[in-house]
């Protein structure tokens, strides 16, 4: 499985060097139920979808957002709901109160994620309404983006709400805007429908005995049944 361990509490490396987080717990449990042992490749997000398509790994387990575009090139298994958040330094020094305030603001995102596209849409909307667009800065990973935020090189980071809340709880950053877009589910992605079917089965058994709900809730995320695209059971999406 590929993961980008730069994003606490979803997937990150702890002080003793172990890979931990919600997606790691989830991946380990899925592998265990398939009588396998999970092996993780820690690689930046940008390389993950091409790597899956080239069979460098069997599954992406890094909180990839579900989109219909992506469901055309790989099997997607939505498993939890989260929104995007605008994250700033503590005390919200630029006084961001709505998306309009992102006009002229320097906004950091990770290369290739849905956040980058969303940031460009927000900026395009600002231009359309006659305001100055945002200055979007693209980083190799979210850890680089948050470092730049801490150094005040950028004004805000657009990232998942759970990540913002995690940092806010630790007093590192603030989350002035917590729900920037309609909840997009996070999904696992696989290279082969047979693998997708096996993973869905493992997730269904985890949901049946409560393991799935426990892992998702423990990290402040929401289970997939709250997604408006949910069709009564965990399933994979693939429409090439």
């Amino acid at each position: 499985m590929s993961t980008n361990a730069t994003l606490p509490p979803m997937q990150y490396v702890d002080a003793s060097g172990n890979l931990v987080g919600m997606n790691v717990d989830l991946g380990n449990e899925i592998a265990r139920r398939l009588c396998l042992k999970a092996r993780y490749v820690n690689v930046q997000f940008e390389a993950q979808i091409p790597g899956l398509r080239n069979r460098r790994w069997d599954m992406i387990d890094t909180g990839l957002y579900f989109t219909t575009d992506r469901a055309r090139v790989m099997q997607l298994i939505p498993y939890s709901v989260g929104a995007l958040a605008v994250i700033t330094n503590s005390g919200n020094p630029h006084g961001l109160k709505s998306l309009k305030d992102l006009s002229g603001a320097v906004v950091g995102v990770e290369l290739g994620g849905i956040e980058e596209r969303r940031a460009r849409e927000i900026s395009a909307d600002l231009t359309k309404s006659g305001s100055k667009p945002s200055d979007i800065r693209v980083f190799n990973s979210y850890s680089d983006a948050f470092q730049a935020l801490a150094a005040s090189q950028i004004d805000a980071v657009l990232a998942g709400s759970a990540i913002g809340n995690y940092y806010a709880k630790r007093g590192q950053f603030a989350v002035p805007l917590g729900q920037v877009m309609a909840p997009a589910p996070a999904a696992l992605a696989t290279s082969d429908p047979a693998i997708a079917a096996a993973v869905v089965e493992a997730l269904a058994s985890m949901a049946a005995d409560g393991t799935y709900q426990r892992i998702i809730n423990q990290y402040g995320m929401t289970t997939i049944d709250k997604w408006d695209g949910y069709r009564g059971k965990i399933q994979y999406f693939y429409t090439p």
Partner: protein
Amino acid sequence: MNWSWHSFWDFLSSPYLLRGAWTTVWLTVAATAIGLLVGSAAALMKMAGNPLLRGVASFYVWLWRATPLLVQLMILYTGLPQIGIRLTVVECALIGFGLNEAAYLAEVIRAGIRSVDRGQVEAAKALGMNYAKTMRIVVLPQAARVIVPPLGNQFNGMLKISSLASVITMQELLRSAQQLAQLEFRVLEAYVAAAIYYIVLTTLWGEIQRRIEAALDRPFQVAASG
């Protein structure tokens, strides 16, 4: 998955990639210009009689060549704000690449100056020329012929290593290609297009360097035939 000529031509003719290439070019030219200026000063200081000047220049060249460029860029961009020095992305790139280039060019320039026979400097002195005049009329025209080939190497390397600027969010050629690759995951097409841009840029530079070398050689050829 197969090769798509359509995507490839799209990428190759994309104004987005062209803008990225332009950033790569101006960053390389600016960093080399800064490198030449600072590097010349450091080279002359390293060869000066004054031990303080020599010490400062030697320390600078040592420190910059002892640390990776990537670390220097991260210190400039995300480290220094911690102590109240906040530089823009462009300032970080110019200072980072310029000073790093200067440390290497200082050694290239020093080698060029040393290649000129000491007897010529003494002869110039005997003719009553001061230091500046000796450098300008006697030493530098000869040293330049020695300096240009390794300087060309540095410029060629800088064209490619400038891709490191993407880590401080500079929208240069490689970063632009990475973003195009994300659109439909036409990764091979995007990177091959970027590689072609790099090949064109380094080849163009090779031609420019050849002409500079020819121009510097001309006075010496006249002297030989006369």
